[in-house]
């Protein structure tokens, strides 16, 4: 009976995801880290859930952003919350920093990949501890690295080129938010699974905060958009 509630003895494999989140984008800035993600949970091609929180605090120093299967992300959060709890129970003044959490996530993802039963997620882990800024990513097969700017999913193709051109060290909070919003707007235009409701997370030495959900304005008033097939009727 107990096997039904939690068993890994049968050889099983996750074949495909059901409820999925799309891109997460993250950058380092002057005071710390900024992450952005929308609140969509897609069910195949249907934009089914529109208030899914894909950015979550991890302990005092880190925030995780997840794309991919939401049920697997919920399971990852249960593991992380337990990890932080046991860390706190030592009550020794030490606390797990972003580097350690990133490493734990990497092991979790890679070991599942080795058993052909991956957690179907791409994760971004950002944090600040003792003045050190940290921004890393882990994929569902355990590929992991740190960088000044990272993205998952469509964000790899649409956001990272923008970040490569416009990111620079020691950006202000305002510059950072504007850059992330530029990325999120492009994703909104070009990613079918994006929804116009997003959150931005900020991590600094002082602490971690996640904004209330908000929506971005979009621009459609290009003259070329008004009558695009004027010169070639029947085209699109």
């Amino acid at each position, binding site marked *: 009976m107990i096997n*039904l509630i939690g*068993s890994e003895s049968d050889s099983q494999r996750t074949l495909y995801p059901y*409820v999925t989140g799309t891109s997460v984008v993250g950058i380092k800035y002057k005071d710390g880290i900024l992450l952005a993600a929308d609140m969509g949970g897609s069910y195949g*091609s249907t934009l089914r859930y529109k208030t899914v929180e894909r950015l979550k605090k991890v302990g005092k120093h880190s925030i995780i952003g997840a794309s991919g299967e939401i*049920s697997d992300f919920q*399971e990852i959060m249960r593991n992380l919350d337990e990890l932080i709890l046991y860390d706190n129970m030592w009550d020794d003044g030490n606390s797990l920093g972003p580097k350690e959490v990133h490493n734990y996530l990497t092991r979790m993802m890679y070991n599942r990949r080795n058993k052909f039963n991956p957690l179907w997620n791409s994760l971004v882990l950002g944090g600040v501890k003792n003045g050190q800024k940290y921004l890393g990513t882990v994929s569902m097969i355990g590929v992991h690295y740190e960088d000044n700017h990272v993205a998952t999913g469509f964000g790899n193709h649409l956001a990272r080129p923008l970040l490569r051109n416009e990111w620079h060290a020691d950006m202000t909070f305002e510059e950072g938010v504007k850059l992330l919003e530029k990325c999120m707007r492009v994703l909104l235009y070009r990613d079918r699974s994006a929804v116009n409701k997003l959150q931005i997370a900020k991590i600094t030495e002082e602490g971690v905060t996640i904004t209330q959900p908000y929506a971005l304005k979009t621009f459609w008033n290009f003259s070329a958009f008004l009558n695009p097939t004027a010169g070639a009727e029947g085209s699109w």
Partner: protein
Amino acid sequence: MDMSSGDLNAPHSMGTTIIGVTYNGGVVLGADSRTSTGMYVANRASDKITQLTDNVYICRSGSAADSQIVSDYVRYFLHQHTIQLGQPSTVKVAANLVRLLSYNNKNSLQTGLIVGGWDKYEGGKIYGIPLGGTVLELPFTIGGSGSSYLYGFFDQVWKEGMTQEEAEKLVVKAVSLAIARDGASGGVVRTVTIDKDGATRKFYPSETLPLWHEELEPQESLLDILSAASPEPMMS
């Protein structure tokens, strides 16, 4: 890098329309009554709203066998939990038990579920548990194949803080609309309303439901129409 399985593996749910809605003081659960095997209607008066405890019910969709076995196990566990706890279980605990079964057996099960109930700590709560085992606490949620036809409807009419009467009317109207367009949904509309005083079951046969586009008033026989009408009763 990320892997995506594309639209080839988009999930599909089989027959049913199920709905769960919160209102000011409790929840209303609704469902149709059709169980089909392929094109044949195996049961035209099924009860898809199943009791888990006195104060928590579950709406079942997808595979009848899978949803029945999951709810049977959860009922069994909740029964023991109630005895050990010494008071009624919370809705959250019920939802989490469903999650454990759905998530850990995600490769074998094909059932989307809605858990709804009332407890003294949180009041009326609805939890959506789609394929894969994601759990989302929501003000309302819809499921089953018939739900495809209701996303636009709910986007337009949903509002927070409805009265019990408004909520029940909304659920009945919605299931009735889905039945009109989804071949896998049909029969009668069943609702269960749960508040601090317990659960009340209601039954709405088709005569009590409104007629939608291109639906005609049911008649006893053509003969009645002929005798009732005066000149030119037959169309030439």
